[in-house]
């Protein structure tokens, strides 16, 4: 059954389209209570006292827990060393939205009323909002237990930047600023928890990593890990935001307290206010390029705004500091990075993990250098592009690299040469009106431009986590001949279950309808860190492939014994085992035979995939081959800029992705579409409007995510570089597909109207202001 490379629709698509898929908020358990969180209204304040006596009088209230009536251990997300979080604030609140108390009541209205009746006395403290000022000495500390507001800093060098800059023909320097971006999954955070008589909690959660969640929540609750079971629920969009989340542990807390099932669901406003949006960064970058276009030296300083807690932002900072260095053959580098606490919403993982932020800077500054050199930006990139077989400056072993192909195919696909204007039109409105009247005015008003940007990502990387980070899988075959796949990697909606089913069916010779892929249950599924870092297909896919091969061996051994043939002479196709002399058995028959031959045992294939030659980065130098494969991307944006208003419209994105090998084109292209849409939102539209620590855009009408009317044509090109480690050659796709979009659009804007916007989002006002600054009146 050759299923690799085929368009296979989601195996759970019909369930979703009919509304039959049960999401967490849809769960109802007998006697279930409703839980809600009381959140801090202040960015920084001491909790003087909490009076919950009136709330307790509300009929229907079953539990009220605060940091004043309970002791909570300090904890962090799995393996992160700075323990800066508690389930509920004990002495201080650190941001508007910080969790102060939780309530469980018989229904939502009662819980909401109880929250209203809890009186918290605060003493406001001076807050810090701006990461740059938060770094200074003598400013208020976000966490009293820390020596400064900088929980993580890093610095590393390669080669000799002084020599590199000395040999440079042009040196460009710029500061870039990128803000918060909200994941905007349609399903708000939700949890259902239930505690058994032994004190063991079962949690039903839409989360990306049940394994990591169990570790973190056990630490947060101060209970052993084996007292928590996590059952993964379908995820209504994750994008990194649902890796782990405090609400889950709070729900467990209430279930333990009451002995009753508890459901908690964020309101959309809460989700905006206390989610874990993309880490904002200020990126200073200086790039030296030789006259022939060779990149000679780069110096960067990255200041990342962690918000109130570290969460995963230390990893995100590291990723921002050093992943992009491996995109081109650049040898002289010096980088400093700082993670800084502020009294704002804690930030975290979002598709790209620091890479979209820093690629906006890198890919913008490359175009600035190309401009100064008078070189085509595509040419500049091609000259320096990393190639298959390279060991990069940070020791990455690039076993497959389609970067040059991506650049060539995306630019060709977009008609780059013809569309790239060499001249901008600097005429002002008045001049144009005078010169040529209305018609020319319209023509001059809308300027078209085209821009390119590239990126890379990891796929199946070593994390900072101390746990086994390969992947494992178990496949059982039931008596009806159905294969059931258990794996530790989750489906976020991108279709991981379908891809796993496809791989299992391919290896086992089954129709895909005879394969089931379970959702993760930490009591049942083999260990797996879940889905992040583009690891699901690469690592999980390999584990499924190996487990299916193992199951296949077992099936054929039984069939051989039964028929007196040998396993080598038998084949499985469409669920039927055939061989010489008319041997013909169904998989169900074999499974039933196995049952009697093995005295009740069954066919059970196991697969463990350990990515080869991969190490965690060196803690100081950050050197090391961190991933078993690396995907590459080039995207070309075509834009139209209204020079009178500064409004930018994206007309088309041509996106070329080196995915190693396309396992399922339908799903792969779907990832590109969705990522590019999020990238356009990030670039042009999305702004949480955080001022004085307050998220002011916390509805979908204020926080502007792309709607159907905002979408341009997306032309997706999938490049196959056949990675030796990926299953069938495949590498990850979902994260890098968003990463270069911002820079591609910014470069296209520059190409259209000659202004360089260095701050995201690129609003019409910013473009208008820049046009005014550069050309006088528009």
């Amino acid at each position, binding site marked *: 059954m050759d299923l690799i490379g085929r368009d296979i629709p989601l195996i759970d698509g019909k369930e979703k389209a009919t*509304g039959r898929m049960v999401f967490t908020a849809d769960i109802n358990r007998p006697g279930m209570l409703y839980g809600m969180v009381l959140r801090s209204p202040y960015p920084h304040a001491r909790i003087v006292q909490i009076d919950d006596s009136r709330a307790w009088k509300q009929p229907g209230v079953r539990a009220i827990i605060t940091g004043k009536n309970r002791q909570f251990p300090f904890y962090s997300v799995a393996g992160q060393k700075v323990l800066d979080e508690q389930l509920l604030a004990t002495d201080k609140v650190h941001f508007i939205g910080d969790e102060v108390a939780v309530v469980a009541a018989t229904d939502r209205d009662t819980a909401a009323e109880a929250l209203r009746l809890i009186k918290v006395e605060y003493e406001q403290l001076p807050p810090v909002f701006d990461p740059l000022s938060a770094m200074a000495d003598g400013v208020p500390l976000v966490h009293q237990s820390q020596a400064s507001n900088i929980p993580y800093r890093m610095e590393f060098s390669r080669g000799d930047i002084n020599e590199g800059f000395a040999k440079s023909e042009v040196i460009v320097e710029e500061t870039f600023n990128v803000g918060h971006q909200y994941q905007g999954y349609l399903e708000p955070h939700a949890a259902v928890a239930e505690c058994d008589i032994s004190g063991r909690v079962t949690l039903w959660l839409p989360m990306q990593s049940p394994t990591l969640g169990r570790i973190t929540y056990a630490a947060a609750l101060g209970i052993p890990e084996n007292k928590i079971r996590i059952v993964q629920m379908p995820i209504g969009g994750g994008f990194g935001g649902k890796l782990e989340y405090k609400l889950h542990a709070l729900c467990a807390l209430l279930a333990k307290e009451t002995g009753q099932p508890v459901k908690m669901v964020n309101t959309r406003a809460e989700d905006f206010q206390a989610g874990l949006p993309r880490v904002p960064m200020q990126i200073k970058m200086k790039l030296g390029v030789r006259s022939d276009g060779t990149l000679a030296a780069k110096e960067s300083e990255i200041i990342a705004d962690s918000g109130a807690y570290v969460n995963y932002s230390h990893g995100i900072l590291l990723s921002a500091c050093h992943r992009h260095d491996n995109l081109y053959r650049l040898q002289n580098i010096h980088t400093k990075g700082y993670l800084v606490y502020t009294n704002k919403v804690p930030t975290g993982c979002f598709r790209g993990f620091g890479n979209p932020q820093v690629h906006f800077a890198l890919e913008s500054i490359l175009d600035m250098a190309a401009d100064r050199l008078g070189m085509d930006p595509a040419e500049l990139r091609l000259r320096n592009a990393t190639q298959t077989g390279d060991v990069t400056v940070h020791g990455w072993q690039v076993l497959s690299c389609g970067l040059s192909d991506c650049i060539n195919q995306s630019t060709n696909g977009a008609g780059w040469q013809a569309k790239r204007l060499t001249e901008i039109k600097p005429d002002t409105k008045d001049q144009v009106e005078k010169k040529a009247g209305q018609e020319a005015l319209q023509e001059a008003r809308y300027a078209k431009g085209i821009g390119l940007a590239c990126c890379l990502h990891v796929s199946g990387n070593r994390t900072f986590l101390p746990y086994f980070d390969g992947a494992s899988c178990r496949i059982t075959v039931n008596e009806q001949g159905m294969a059931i796949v258990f794996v530790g990697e989750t489906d976020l909606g991108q279709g991981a279950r379908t891809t796993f089913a496809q791989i299992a069916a391919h290896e086992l010779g089954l129709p895909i309808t005879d394969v089931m892929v379970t959702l993760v249950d930490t009591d049942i599924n083999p260990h797996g860190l879940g889905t992040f870092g583009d690891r699901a297909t690469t690592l999980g896919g390999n584990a499924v492939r190996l487990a299916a091969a193992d199951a296949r061996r077992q099936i054929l051994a039984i069939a051989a014994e039964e028929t007196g043939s040998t396993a080598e002479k038998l084949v499985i196709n469409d669920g039927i085992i055939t061989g010489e002399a008319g041997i013909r058995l169904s998989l169900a028959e074999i499974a039933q035979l196995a049952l009697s031959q093995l005295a009740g045992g069954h066919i059970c294939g196991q697969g463990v995939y350990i990515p080869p030659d991969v190490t965690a980065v060196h803690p100081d130098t950050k050197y090391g081959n961190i991933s078993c494969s690396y995907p590459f991307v080039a995207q070309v944006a075509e834009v139209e800029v209204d020079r009178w208003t500064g409004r930018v419209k994206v007309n088309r994105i041509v996106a070329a992705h080196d995915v190693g090998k396309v396992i399922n084109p339908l799903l792969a292209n779907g990832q590109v579409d969705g990522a590019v849409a999020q990238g356009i939102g990030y670039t042009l539209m999305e702004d949480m409007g955080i001022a004085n620590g307050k998220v002011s855009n916390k509805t979908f009408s204020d926080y502007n995510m792309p709607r159907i009317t905002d979408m341009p044509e997306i032309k997706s090109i999938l490049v196959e570089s056949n990675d030796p480690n990926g299953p069938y050659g495949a590498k990850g796709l979902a994260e890098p597909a968003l990463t270069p979009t911002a820079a591609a659009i910014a470069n296209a804007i520059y190409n259209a109207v000659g202004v360089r916007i260095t701050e995201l989002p690129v609003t019409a006002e910013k473009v208008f202001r820049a046009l005014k600054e550069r050309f006088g009146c528009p």
Partner: protein
Amino acid sequence: MRQMLKVTVNGYPWEGLVKSDQSLLDFLRDELGLTGAKKGCDGGECGACVVLLDGRAVNSCLIPVLDVNNCEVRTIEGLQDEQTNQLQDAFVSVGAVQCGFCTPGMIVAARALLAEVHNPGEEEIREAMVGHLCRCTGYTRIAAAIKLAASRINPETAGPER
């Protein structure tokens, strides 16, 4: 406060006391267990909660439940006709479904659109679906799915295959 409500949901009459300040969405989900309509925002901004009210697509989170007295409500669970099936098949086959949280609302709205316009063009589709957020798919396939379903339901008026 509780008040009497009489309503037909998915063809079945229902009568009883409801919380007077409840939304139609909460009534459907919490009282009737019809969880196909999703709560994405509770503020009329995402379209995940869309149901048919006397045949019209509405954001059920914005409708006070008492407003549907004597009305006919149809949710995704109650739409099992040919048109809906075609839409569901098309959504799945062209990849217009990813996480699926927005999908029931999209299907109901698309069903209402096709009841009015046999073969909607790009503009009509965009107009009908602008109230629906989808964070996963980038929308292009949603428009394609609606066109595909329409052309299968009404082949005689469909434009040329694209």
